[in-house]
């Protein structure tokens, strides 16, 4: 195309000009990088740096662990954390054992989804108070109840309950563990 031909001509002209205008520049190729590229690198570096520091400041790596103290990084969770310390499940279950599925893929995708939701809530403060578990996360909890207590509940035929099911047992809804056995974890 015309532009390509023109660009090539300009290229050559530029190269010539460059050679003519700055012999030093020709001898030191690393200075040949444009100022724009330099500015760009600085900015990208700044973004990565700020992001990396923020990740560290917010204890980002702790969320990859199973340590319950990580959940209490946000002090709105202090009551639940303290409650867990006094709860019946303290010696046998951590936060993740109940609130996150146990398969490798499920565990980390759930952590990512919940983490995203918690981060936006933390930053913007626009969550319902008192904090209420979502239907999906309640289902995860219920699954985990059945997982550990399978010997006891295997005979009870119950599918995954809906949120309505959890709150209104009977009337054709599935049985929900937490409807009666709330306060087990915290």
């Amino acid at each position, binding site marked *: 195309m015309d532009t390509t031909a023109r660009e090539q001509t300009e*290229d050559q002209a*530029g190269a010539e000009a460059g050679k003519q205008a700055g012999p030093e520049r020709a001898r030191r190729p690393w200075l040949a990088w444009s100022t724009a590229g330099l500015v*760009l690198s600085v900015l990208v570096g*700044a973004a990565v740096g*700020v992001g990396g520091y923020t990740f560290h400041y917010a204890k980002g790596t702790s969320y990859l662990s199973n340590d319950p103290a990580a959940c209490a990084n*946000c002090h709105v969770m202090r009551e639940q954390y303290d409650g867990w310390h006094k709860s019946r499940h303290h010696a046998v279950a951590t936060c993740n054992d109940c609130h996150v599925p146990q398969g490798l893929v499920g565990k980390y995708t759930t952590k990512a989804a919940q983490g995203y939701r918690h981060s936006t809530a933390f930053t913007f403060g626009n969550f319902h108070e008192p904090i209420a578990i979502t239907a999906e996360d309640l289902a995860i909890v219920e699954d985990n109840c059945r997982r550990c207590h399978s010997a006891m509940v295997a005979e009870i035929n119950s599918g995954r309950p809906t949120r309505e099911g959890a709150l209104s047992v009977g009337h054709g809804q599935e049985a929900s563990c937490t409807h009666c056995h709330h306060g087990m974890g915290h």
Partner: protein
Amino acid sequence: MTDQAKRNPGAAKRGSGRGGAFFYAVVATVAAGGAIAGAMLLSNIAQRKAEAEQVAFALVPLEETTVDPAEWGKNFPRQYDGYKRTADNERTRFGGSESLPLADDPLGKAVQKLEVDPRLRVIFNGYAFALDYRERRGHAFMLHDQRETDRVKLKPQPGACLNCHASNVLAFRQAGLGAGAPGHLSEPLTSENGMAQLFKGFDKVNKMTYADASELVNHPVTCLDCHDPKTLALRITKPGFINGIRALAKSEDPVPHLPSVEQWRKGSRAREYDPNELASRQEMRSMTCAQCHVEYYFKGEGKTLTFPWHKGLKLEQIEAYYDETGWTDFKHKDSGAPALKAQHPEFEMWSQGIHARSGVSCADCHMPYKREGAIKVSDHQVRSPMLNTARACQTCHNYSENEIKERVAAIQDRTHKLMGRAEDAVVELISAIKSAAESGASDEQLKGARTLQRQAQFRCDFVNAENSMGFHAPAEAARILGESIDYARQGVAEVMKVTGGKGYKSLLADKPATPGGEPGKAAEKVEKPKDGAAAVSAAGGRPPG
């Protein structure tokens, strides 16, 4: 383009000059935006962490003499903000009271209950409450509304009224010092001297006229009335409650919801029960409110504010105390019965309910915790939990807000209907007694009926004056109203025996019927009483639209 290529040979080499620069500009902008967003997020997280560490800053020193809440507000702006919002009076089903400003009073007046429910004029005939009995408003209005009510402007009242409607801890101490109490104002309130000053001032101010006493106070309830200025701990500052809880502790009435009182009872009783020393923090979260939200009377020539708890908190025990001491609030103008007036007995009613028994304090529902940023504060906008159902109720009751509101409405509607029946019955009894007396029945003959009126009226009034429309203790409220209806009808039967079954004219016969106050709003159309009293709108009725 060629010039640009000359200045930036590299750029020209990289690719098409114009397109390349644009690409770099976009990436640069995105990276810059990313850095900015990252920095904002970092700043947000840092703020939350800081809020977790320190929630209040001591900018000004607070003393035992700092009455003005604006000063406290410099250290505790969030609580002060909530406190000021008690001027906001959104109406609920049976609470709150929206009012419009008036030409001569920017704070306006609440709706006149006597217009909405004319039975009240009959029931209180002969007492100040038949002149002016308006809906109650938020804490912000307590002193203003007391100063402006006809009950104070048209009838002589003592300074004892200011025990509950103003911040008086400092005024009492100053009056006490003036009357010769030891020590000085800077001493802590709970010290021996501080208490001596408080009680001496209490005695002095009770006896004063309302006009004189009113000059000593400037604020409705303030921070100083409930909080220690140095530690911010809750404390009792009103002598009426201290005397009342001492009397209750000595009584036999079981109070399982006040464990420190039960504990004191089991001890040696060498010293009087002192709530500032013995009450737990959770008990204090109810007791500070019970400094004012109680039944009371002014005893003797000294007009000593007294809580009638010497036999216990239950209605029968309060009534027995009044009967024993021979107390009567007023002689009924129509029937001549020795009537009692109940005033806002929230603490006594709550004490009979399941929430009290379960350890739920006044503040748990009426001042629930709220989150501002990452700071947790008690919501100092004391108001109906129905305006704050999520935070007030859902921490314990895991149901939807609508379901909770419907449950409360059901309880209150049932109580309200029973109360309507009780009011009707009491009006009937008053009418019957009046008719009988006019036909020549003697005092001896009517004594039984008049006593029954006293009992019926006190019970009906107990629930009417209590501000929860039965919610604080639904079964107790229903029981009390049932007894009220029973006693009133028994009274009519008594009068029939005396008059030989002669008929009587109901005192409301020629007044048009009203719904008795429809829940949720002031009566839209109020039939004006025959004497042409001021219209509801002028008295500050429902806003238009």
